[in-house]
């Protein structure tokens, strides 16, 4: 079973590699994720290390464990476990390679390990006992201290936080540097490379942190609706009868509602939170997947191998989930990258309308929303637009490549 699986996926991979743009786009997703994970390393208003009259403080590290956005928390934990994973993974990788395991398999396992480690860190560090206390929440590292030779810090390359308000720098154009008489905080000497928004927050930093939000919304929402869609679609296709009747009706009812309309209504009613947005996109997206999977399972159900498995005495659950489903998953997988792209578009659109995540959160759409009030702030339009466009293009390219690679008619 697993052999045929591997060979099917290796064919798909070979096909995928032939499609150069898609191949490069898939690789370009890696830096996108690294950017998301390493956002605090690139940009934060907390110094990595701060020398305070003979004492060393580590505000940056403590800040990692105390964030308001759930997506930030997730990625921060991914950052915390990144280097331990690298070490552990390197060691495991060597062992597995000596054991003769295929490369794709090893990589899959390593990524799984990373996800597990991140989840474990998320659980462990949610306990107050374990995580480092938030000592410098109130403290701002201001200039008086900074001028003091006994007090200095090592800052990230972009010394601005994504949500810290700066009253002296509202809506400043790109490359703006504060005049030196206004310097208060330690990071005020540094130019705002892409300008600032209505709260004096650095646009570049918000764009970087915005990748975290966008990718989280995209992946979780799509993961949710693919899970729901696959399970319901498989049940409907495999068992038929009244189960099929019922699920098909539900699918039909859900498809009748225009998706963005329903999302907007639900988010407008339920409130603005990243969880709600993800869940709402999830519950409005599953019917298309379910319909695809249902059709595919219907096709597979009548094949000989299903009969053979049943004749061997396998239970329906086993046949469905171990034999039929793995062979019918491809339409759902093809839909995934496109789904992520459209979830990102929807999230930014919601933020543009003011129904997105709550304001200080660094959503790309929120920047667009600020610019809609006054089009003189062109940097609040151009750069977020570019960010949305690039991310969406990457996912669409990958989706295109995956579709072509899985389409047997195009195989040569």
């Amino acid at each position, binding site marked *: 079973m697993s052999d045929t699986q591997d060979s099917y996926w290796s064919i798909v991979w070979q096909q995928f590699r032939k499609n150069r743009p898609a191949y490069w786009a898939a690789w370009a997703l890696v830096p996108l994720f690294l950017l998301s994970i390493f956002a605090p390393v690139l940009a934060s208003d907390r110094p990595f290390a701060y020398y305070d009259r003979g004492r060393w403080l580590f505000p940056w590290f403590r800040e990692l464990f105390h964030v308001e956005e759930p997506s930030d928390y997730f990625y921060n934990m991914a950052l915390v476990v990144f280097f331990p994973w690298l070490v552990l993974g390197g060691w495991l990788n060597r062992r597995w390679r000596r054991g003769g395991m295929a490369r794709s398999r090893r990589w899959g396992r390593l990524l799984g390990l990373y996800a597990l480690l991140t989840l474990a860190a998320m659980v462990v560090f949610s306990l107050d006992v374990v995580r480092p206390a938030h000592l410098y929440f109130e403290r701002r590292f201001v200039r008086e201290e900074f001028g003091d030779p006994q007090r200095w810090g090592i800052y990230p390359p972009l010394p601005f936080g994504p949500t810290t308000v700066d009253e002296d720098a509202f809506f400043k154009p790109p490359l703006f540097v504060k005049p030196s008489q206004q310097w208060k905080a330690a990071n005020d000497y540094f130019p705002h490379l892409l300008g600032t928004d209505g709260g004096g927050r650095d646009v570049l930093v918000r764009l970087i942190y915005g990748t975290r939000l966008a990718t989280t919304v995209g992946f979780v929402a799509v993961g949710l609706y693919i899970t729901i869609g696959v399970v319901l679609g498989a049940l409907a296709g495999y068992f038929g009868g009244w189960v099929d009747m019922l699920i098909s009706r539900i699918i*039909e009812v859900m498809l009748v509602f225009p998706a963005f309309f329903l999302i907007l209504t639900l988010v407008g009613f339920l409130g603005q939170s990243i969880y709600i947005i993800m869940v709402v996109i999830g519950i409005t997206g599953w019917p298309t997947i379910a319909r695809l999977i249902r059709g595919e399972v219907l096709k597979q159900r009548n094949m000989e191998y299903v009969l053979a498995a049943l004749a061997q005495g396998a239970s329906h659950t086993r046949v469905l989930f171990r034999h039929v489903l793995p062979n019918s998953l491809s339409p759902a997988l093809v839909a995934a990258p496109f789904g992520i792209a459209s979830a990102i578009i929807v999230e930014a*659109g919601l933020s*543009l*309308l003011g129904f997105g995540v709550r304001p200080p959160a660094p959503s790309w759409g929120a920047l667009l929303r600020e610019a809609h009030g006054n089009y003189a702030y062109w940097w609040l*339009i151009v750069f977020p637009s570019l960010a949305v*466009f690039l991310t969406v293009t990457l996912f669409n390219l990958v989706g295109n490549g995956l579709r072509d690679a899985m389409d047997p008619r195009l195989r040569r």
Partner: protein
Amino acid sequence: MWSYLLRRLLLMIPTLFGVTLVSFAVMQMAPGDPLLLQGGDQGSLAAQGETREAYLVRRRDLKLDRPLFLNLRYFRDWTEPVRHAAWFLGVPVEQLAQDLAPLARLADQTARARLRFLHQLDIPELDRRLQRFFRSPGKESPEQIRAGRLSLARTVRNYVQVFCENLSFHGVPAAVKLLEQESSERMRRGLAWALRYMVVEPFRYEFSDNPQPEEVQEVEATWRRWAQLNPQFLQPLLQEQQKAFHALLEKLLQTSQEQWSLLLEQVPQMDRFLHFLLQHLLDPQSPLEEKAACARILASELDPLPLVPREDASAETLEQIAQNWQLHYRLHRQEYHPSWGRRLWLLVADTQYAYMLVRLATFNFGRSTLRTQEPVSQKIWEAFKVSAPLMALSQVLIYLIAVPLGVICAVKHNSWVDRAISLGLFILYSIPAYVAGMLLLLFFCYGDYLKWFPSGGLHSEGAQQMSPWAYWLDYLHHIVLPTLCLTLFSLAALAMYSRTSMLEVLGQDYIRTARAKGLSEAKVILKHALRNALIPIITLFSNTIPAVLGGSVLIEYLFNIPGMGRLTFESIENKDYPTLMALVYINAIVVMISILASDILYVLVDPRISFQKRSQAG
């Protein structure tokens, strides 16, 4: 064909049912009752220019006080809950704050029962607050405890009040019966208040605008009771005075009602006149119109019957109030005790869902909850008139551009033309329309150099005075950018679809045959290939109907166009549920119909497919 259509239409019924169910669920998710959310603070209600009374009337009109799906209230004995409710309502808040202490301590059986009653009301943090302010007040200062107790008492009272309001007339028989049995002053007070909350308009003091003989009994009974409480009104009047008043009444009847108050101000002996009116109303010989006029004037001049006790009310007043309620109950006995068959019917019919179903099925969407109180259907129609031409135009443009592009790509498959167009389409596909809209606005409306287009709206200021030609040009000038956004960034999918479809057809054997026959390339492509490739595309055409109806939220928001999308956005923002409900529902129905239309179109266009085959397949 007809059997297929019938089958499809029958299948639409469960779907439609599901649609109403989902719409209903969506509305239920809307944050709950504003009264409950405010927890006793009536400030924001007042800010909306609405009294609690008016709010309740509207709530009852919308049937929001009914259960969601099953109305079991007709089958329950409400004596115990009403008794508890009365106990909470019977004393001022300060006293109630004291009385909550035995409840918190679970002193005895009754206290426990009362606490259980409170638990059913879903008061937020009830247990925590009882714990904090009554059972083990630890850190708080005495003032804090007093304030906490008082605010809890106020909340409790509010929730009990809402409980009574929701119970509405189901509780009345129990309450009236209790009013006869109970003797303690507290309970009698509480019951009067509970009844007041349950019944919005207990008595009819007036006739309707178009008086009916059926109304006489009730109105007369009300005023008879009134006269009973104020016997001085029944003093006999002098013959000539009676005549003069009668002449005055006839004069009033001939003038319009707006001028009555003016005329009444000039009446010399007003109290006497009122005596006359009351007696005339109760006189069985008076004609209906005169009775109606009497009742109207009396209702505007006299205080209504006392229904709730003030704090200093004497036992006598309390007794009067109790009797008033009993009279109300006697007058409406029929309504309070429906027959068993009717109760079974009401079990499903008297629910929020049933009422909503009826409203939706009859397309009676009511009025907007905004201050303007416009009818919802009118609002939607206005918005539709704005966005429909725009959407229709862009949909036509999409087809006119996308299909030829797709066909060209397929014909020139793998050439540089194909690659260039595909790349262009891919880029268009990856740009969200609203992002493009903002960029276009930035460069062409607000830019320093290229101020080519107006920045929003559909007409310039003062467009009404323009000549028709200028008006149209102005309109066209305004819709260029929105139409561009709506067209350019949605055509990629259709173009790729037509490319695939055309490619598939071009790979067929009959095309090779046609070429082998020596037909010209143009003929092969236009006559043989294109016509078949268009079949799946034509069926997509039905997707345009919902698009034309629904408008585009984001584009209309950006360009400030008061169309359907903007209406959607604004009704969500203003929590205008009736409008939103109507929008969701209409959209869903239109999508449903257009799916059916597309299936029919499919069969009509493609001779290879018949209705028989389709009904077997699906």
